[in-house]
């Protein structure tokens, strides 16, 4: 079997390396999932803000009830 020229062998070797990079990035990214830590933290922060706002509204309502008495 005739080997391709050294230049093409080098190109093939580097192409194989690029393929390995793509596979590694894909596998690790799939393992992490589509949601990044930054997005998760932002979501948790929004949820905390919602809970705080609910708590403040509840306290304000109770204060108004006590004022009426």
């Amino acid at each position, binding site marked *: 079997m005739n080997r391709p020229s050294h230049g093409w062998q080098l190109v093939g070797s580097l192409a194989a*390396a690029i393929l390995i990079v793509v596979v590694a990035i894909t596998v690790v990214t799939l393992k992490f999932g589509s949601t990044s*830590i930054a997005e998760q933290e932002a979501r948790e922060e929004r949820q905390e803000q919602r809970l705080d706002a609910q708590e403040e509204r509840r306290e304000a309502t109770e204060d108004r009830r006590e004022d009426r008495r």
Partner: protein
Amino acid sequence: MENVVETLTRGNVAEVKVVLASVALALGVYQLAVIAVGYGKLSVPFLASPPALKAHRAVGDTIALLLLITGVMCLSVYGFEDDMATHAIAGTALLAVLAVKVSVVRRDFGLGRFLPVLGISVFALLCLTWSTSAGVVLA
């Protein structure tokens, strides 16, 4: 520096570090196979020794850059933490042995015969560094 890293990774420092380290490890495994062909220890019909050696050099430069970037990210954001002592020692040793290997490749210093040992040491330290951080995250 910490702010630059946080901004570049959009707050996903650990994830980006794990991806970079995992790519370096995958390429490291490839490097072992390619250098085995380069040194004639492994014979494959589609790759001769000279292009294998050139590919090993090019991929090795890429790995060195990846490891340097990962090391800078790690140090600038996390520093040397007590509970990650093994990772810190292995990572520091990895970059030190890698620097020696690159110096020997470029200037020889009469130490060319030690390149296989240095290469295997770099790979072993890369495996240890990866397994004590990225490996734990991915497990």
